[in-house]
């Protein structure tokens, strides 16, 4: 920890977990091994995900903004999450709501939806960043220094929605360690808290999104089997259904005469009624009627149930498909976990109970459980907690494909593939001396590319001139642990690495994000430079720590005078950290990176060998304990020998104590 203490001797940075929700957002951290949500000055953990843009340019987030929504419906953005990663022509813009949108100038401009707030365009990434800033401040007040953050996203979020969330984190000045799927976060909170093993379904119905995830919990391994959902389905849709009824009662059966204020009022009244109906059979609402009178309207629970039935039944389709994808019957589940505020609605609970034929679990507050899980994951990623024991294996929620001739989708990675995942595809040129190539990547299950969600178009350039059909372009699609896609390409005949120009179909490109960062900072470039320096320092400190740790555990894998050279480079880097040149730190990092590259490869091979050998030895030990006679023992030992390949006779290995898996690998204690 010494290294990290250089800049602030009093506080070490502490990782945080953030649930950036449709209706409410939360921030949590782990202290003394227990995750806990951090509250505002009143101790309130839930921050309403509402952002108000004031007349004088002031920005208000949370409860106060919620109050202002009634009188300033267009200047107050509610449920911004539903707009994340969406384009200006998305159907979401046409649903019942009080907002004004900026008409896109052209197709390029239509890639990101923009609210028209007091005549200025504001995009969902910026709105979300305002919410994240408040949460970050809240964490800083309590923890003094905030380290990396894990931000949760609905499992069913596609690439564009994930990228938008990550950009919002960056814009808010957070170091985003990982995007974590909300149901997986909830399972992590449950699994570690209750020490449960088995197969579980996580039914997560929030304000604007629905996820169903089937996963297996097995001694610290959280393996997602399948996931499904709808990233535009949630409590908001219940509110809208009820608001339509209230609007009719107020004298506005159609769009005619509905002002943003009236729409906001109806939506708010609908939400309050929905909450009231959780405990009561009937709720009476007082509504202003067109013309000036007020009117009392009674809504019964069965009336409400009837209204929301189509919304809730939509979740059933996704649940059945997820069970099928996981090759499971509802009866073979060990439990169903409820997550999200909308699972408080009695009709939802009954529906889930009928669907899965069992009483669902809701022991951990469904509003908080996701943030708590995110904090646990952040802590693990920061190298605290039982990092060795826990492993999250998540999946790709929607198939990735490319458009082929005739507009048909060819799947390259099917949905529910464990991430990180990769696929290679070989293309060839169709014209003589063709030097460029365009590939359209889509996400979704539909046959036609036009019916799937367009992710990006990739242009490959610089193919050496060759007769048609001779070039072999190998394109690699990698999906990382955040579920984000990366594409690279190579011409295999010449081995030339191709330049890949990424044109995302939705969202912002890197330059635009950079510009937004500049705009957000008070002093523009000067601030940005300071921020870069701080980021480079953090990065350099981590790498130094990792390197020094490696020198302690794996120095025997170094060759020649590598050790001296690495130590010299590390010392040099430690020195430039104290300086003020981000560029010097950056070059020090890449120098150390270069020197340790081969060694890192050998360390990784050792980690692999340890993972294989460590467990096999443990297996032999435990099998021996259970085995009745020597025959069984020999059989196991034989299997072990062949698993290690020729030349690796286990009997020559020094005796090793049986131990929990992985504890011998060189990844232990990674910062």
């Amino acid at each position, binding site marked *: 920890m010494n290294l990290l203490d250089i800049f602030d001797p009093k506080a070490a940075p502490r990782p945080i977990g953030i649930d950036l929700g449709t209706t409410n957002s939360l921030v949590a951290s782990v202290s003394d091994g227990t995750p806990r949500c951090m509250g505002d000055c009143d101790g309130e953990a839930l921050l309403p995900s509402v952002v108000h843009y004031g007349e004088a340019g002031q920005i208000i987030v949370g409860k106060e903004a919620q109050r202002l929504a009634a009188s300033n419906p267009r200047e107050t953005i509610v449920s911004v999450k539903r707009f994340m990663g969406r384009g200006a022509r998305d159907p979401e813009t046409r649903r019942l709501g009080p907002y004004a949108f900026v008409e896109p100038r052209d197709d390029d401009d239509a890639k990101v939806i923009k609210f028209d707030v007091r005549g200025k365009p504001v995009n969902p990434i910026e709105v979300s960043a305002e919410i994240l800033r408040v949460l970050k401040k809240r964490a800083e007040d309590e923890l003094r220094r905030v380290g*990396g953050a894990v931000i949760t996203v609905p499992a069913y979020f596609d690439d564009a929605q994930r990228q938008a969330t990550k950009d919002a984190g960056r814009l808010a000045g957070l170091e985003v*360690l*990982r995007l974590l799927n909300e149901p997986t976060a909830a399972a992590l909170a449950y699994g570690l808290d209750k020490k449960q093993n088995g197969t579980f379904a996580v039914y997560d119905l929030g304000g604007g999104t629905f996820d169903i995830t089937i996963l297996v919990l097995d001694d610290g*391994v959280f*393996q997602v089997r399948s996931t499904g959902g709808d990233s535009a389905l949630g409590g908001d849709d219940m509110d809208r259904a009820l608001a339509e009824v209230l609007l009719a009662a107020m004298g506005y059966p159609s769009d005619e005469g509905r002002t943003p204020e009236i729409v906001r009022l109806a939506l708010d009244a609908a939400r309050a009624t929905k909450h009231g109906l959780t405990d009561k059979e009937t709720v009476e609402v007082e509504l202003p009627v067109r013309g000036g009178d007020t009117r009392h309207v009674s809504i019964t629970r069965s009336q409400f149930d009837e209204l929301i039935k189509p919304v809730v039944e939509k979740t059933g389709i996704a649940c*059945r*498909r997820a069970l*099928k994808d996981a090759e499971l019957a509802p009866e073979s589940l060990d439990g169903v976990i409820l997550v999200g505020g909308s699972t408080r609605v009695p009709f939802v609970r009954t529906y889930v109970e009928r669907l899965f034929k069992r009483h669902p679990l809701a022991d951990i507050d469904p509003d908080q459980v996701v943030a708590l899980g995110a904090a646990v994951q952040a802590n*693990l*990623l*920061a*190298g605290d907690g039982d*990092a*060795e024991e826990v*492993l*999250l*294996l998540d999946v790709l929620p929607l198939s990735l494909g490319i458009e082929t001739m005739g507009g048909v989708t060819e799947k390259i990675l099917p949905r529910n*593939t*464990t*991430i*990180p*995942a*990769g696929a290679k595809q070989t293309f060839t040129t169709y014209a003589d001396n063709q030097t460029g190539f365009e590939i359209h990547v889509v996400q979704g299950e539909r046959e036609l590319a036009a019916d799937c969600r367009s992710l990006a178009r990739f242009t490959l350039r610089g193919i050496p001139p060759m007769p048609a059909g001779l070039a072999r372009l190998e394109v690699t699609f*990698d999906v*990382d*642990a955040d579920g984000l896609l990366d594409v690279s390409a190579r011409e295999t005949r010449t081995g030339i690495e191709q330049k890949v120009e990424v044109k995302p179909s939705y969202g912002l490109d890197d330059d635009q994000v950079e510009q937004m960062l500049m705009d957000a900072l008070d002093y523009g470039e000067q601030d940005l430079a300071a921020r870069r320096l701080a980021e480079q320092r953090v990065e350099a400190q*981590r*790498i130094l*720590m*990792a*390197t020094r740790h490696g020198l302690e555990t794996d120095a025997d894998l170094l060759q020649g005078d590598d050790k001296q050279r690495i130590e010299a480079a590390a010392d040099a880097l430690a020195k430039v950290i104290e300086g003020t040149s981000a560029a010097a730190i950056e070059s020090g*990092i890449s120098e*150390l*990176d*270069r020197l*340790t*590259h081969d060694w*890192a*490869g050998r360390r*990784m091979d050792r*980690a*692999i060998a*340890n*993972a*294989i050998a*460590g*467990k096999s030895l443990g297996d032999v030990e435990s099998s021996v304990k259970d085995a009745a006679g020597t025959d069984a023992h020999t059989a196991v030992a034989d*299997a072990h020998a*062949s*698993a*290690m*390949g020729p030349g690796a006779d286990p009997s020559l290995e020094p005796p090793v104590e049986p131990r929990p*898996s*992985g504890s011998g*690998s060189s*990844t232990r204690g*990674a*910062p």
Partner: protein
Amino acid sequence: MDPFDTLGIPPRFALELTETEQRYRDLSRALHPDKYVGRPASERRMALSKAIEVNEAWRLLRDPARRAEAMFRRAGIEVGETKGAPADPELLMEMMEQREALAEVRGNKDRPGLETLVAGMREREKSVLDRLAAALDAPAPNPDALRSNLPALSELRYVRRFLEEASAAEDELT
């Protein structure tokens, strides 16, 4: 990269899946990107590509048709959806009839009929798997003997595709 080599397990068609999954998890524990947060960039990239390989290996080995392909490839026999032996006309004919039968029960919303078809096909899947296991796991297989089992692989692919479609039909009927 051969999936058996990636996971460091002896090549076998009749694979013990529980044990293989355990090996897959052990390797994931060592290589998952979560374990490399804060490491130098090149190390993170290296771990990422290894983790992808391990995930891919497990995905292939879990699927019997893909596992059989890997076994054939190890024996130096090139296989793929388009390569390998041309389909046996008799098998093609039979599969066409089976698909017609599937379309019919689907159209008639005939659930018991669908179940009978699926049960028959599952039986068949099992027998193909047994045949493949006998050939691929033979003590000293010679390439020619193995090659004569390529039709079993295409049969397996047909059977599995049929079962996938039948599963979609089941969805419609529920």
